[in-house]
């Protein structure tokens, strides 16, 4: 212990670490009633870190060219020691991240934590959500399987519905008329460098905004009252709260380990849950497999495009929905956050979830 104390003394004189720790960990009080959903931020940070590490490891053996990509992934799965574990962790991890992102967003919506003064935190988080989906989409092509190839063909083709510039957008996304070597090159560059850098910066900004405004108090319990409208900046303090470290960190760790356990369960007991049989055949640009479907989190969008008579209208509907979600804090400006006092919002919220689930199931079986 004296060695630890010596090290702390050394750092304290130079960096004031004890003060930093007090301000940000032991003396930083967070809401006492913080529930499981409050841990999802930490869960996502842990899962993104895992994606970064497993992605880095996969890069060692993956070859980003059409002639070798599929074989290199097969080699990772079959020849490289524990390559299967690293790849499954990356594939399953990406799906678990989408689940955690959706839960994070849904809980923030339900508790109306996006309201003033946290509008920008929501907006930046929404951008991060979209970047994560873009990472999923670009990563999907990289194994160069039939599924990768045709799912990317269908996904990029949707952009063709944009009036005037649609065809040019599709060609630009693909780097040519069809999905091919050029598409793989640009998707690879985006997946391993462009998007992760951007996402890292956006997550950093999200955390900064969250820390600056303070963690929002859960809008539950008999003693909760909507706060008075803010006219000047004020960090939301919780004088009756619990210390961030160790109390809140313990809660966060419980959430992180719960999700890691779910990840491990899928890897070891249902490894092909997110890997359909068409993902096991090499890409063939001349043979389209039947019933090609996007990933489960894009099924709602896929089905929306199918049910509208025109692709432009379908794409427009998706655009309107996503834009409404992005700017929701600027439309829903009342101070009330308690779900029981927001019946209209809760009704729309529940119906919206039901609609998304129904569209996804319909898309899956259509």
């Amino acid at each position: 212990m004296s060695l630890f104390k010596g090290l702390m003394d050394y750092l304290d004189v130079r960096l004031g670490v004890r003060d930093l720790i007090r301000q940000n960990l032991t003396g930083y009080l967070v809401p006492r009633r913080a529930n499981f959903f409050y841990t999802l931020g930490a869960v996502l940070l842990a899962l993104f870190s895992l994606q970064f590490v497993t992605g880095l490891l996969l890069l060692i053996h993956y070859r980003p060219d059409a002639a070798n990509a599929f074989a290199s992934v097969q080699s990772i799965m079959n020849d490289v020691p524990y390559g299967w574990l690293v790849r499954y962790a990356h594939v399953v991890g990406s799906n678990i991240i989408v689940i955690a992102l959706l839960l994070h967003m849904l809980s923030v919506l339900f508790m109306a934590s996006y309201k003033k003064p946290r509008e920008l935190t929501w907006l930046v988080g929404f951008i991060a959500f979209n970047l994560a989906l873009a990472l999923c989409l670009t990563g999907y092509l990289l194994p160069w399987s039939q599924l990768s190839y045709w799912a990317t063909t269908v996904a990029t083709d949707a952009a063709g519905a944009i009036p005037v510039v649609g065809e040019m957008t599709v060609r630009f996304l693909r780097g040519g008329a069809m999905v091919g070597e050029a598409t793989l090159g640009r998707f690879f560059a985006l997946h391993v460098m462009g998007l992760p850098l951007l996402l890292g910066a956006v997550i950093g900004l999200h955390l900064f905004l969250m820390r600056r405004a303070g963690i929002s108090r859960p809008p539950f319990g008999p003693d909760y009252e909507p706060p008075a409208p803010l006219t000047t900046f004020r960090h939301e303090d919780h004088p009756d709260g619990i210390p961030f470290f160790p109390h809140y960190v313990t809660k966060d760790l419980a959430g992180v380990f719960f999700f890691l356990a779910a990840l491990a369960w899928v890897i070891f007991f249902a490894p092909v849950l997110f890997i359909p049989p068409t993902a096991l055949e090499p890409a063939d640009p001349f043979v389209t497999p039947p019933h090609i479907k996007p990933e489960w989190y894009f099924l709602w969008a896929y089905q929306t495009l199918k049910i509208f008579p025109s692709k432009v209208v379908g794409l427009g509907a998706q655009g309107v929905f996503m834009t409404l979600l992005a700017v929701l804090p600027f439309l829903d400006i009342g101070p009330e956050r308690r779900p029981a006092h927001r019946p209209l919002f809760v009704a729309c919220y529940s119906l919206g979830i039901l609609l998304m689930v129904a569209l996804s199931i319909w898309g899956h079986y259509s």
Partner: protein
Amino acid sequence: MANDSLPPNQRRFFLTIVLGGISAVLSVAAGWPVFRFLSPASGGGEVKPVEMPRAKIDVGGAQFFTYHGSPAVVLQKSAGEFVAFSAVCTHLGCIVKWIPDKEEFLCPCHAGRFSTDGAVLGGPPPKPLKSIPVVLAGDLLRIG
């Protein structure tokens, strides 16, 4: 309550030990696959000799090839007399090149020189080039 009889520092020490143990087990469980993933591929036991047609090497000429994953060179000193060496300089690991005019190997990094027997002729290399056995079987050279 029974655990109230324990002083807080003892409980804290116990918890630290338990958490440390669990963390160590989890670290090893996560670290071992990563270590194995990053480990170089094992040779898989016996290494096959390299076969090469003798016609590929002129008298007084050299041919470079890969042996056990690293560069090697086979040389026809005189008609029918073949020798083979690792082409890795024993000084700092650069690859030697064959200088036919001088009939010696030269390491371009720090001018180490080796004879046709692999012996050091000059420069900083501390040891001769590592020799590799060569067998001539008909028109085929079997190296290694």
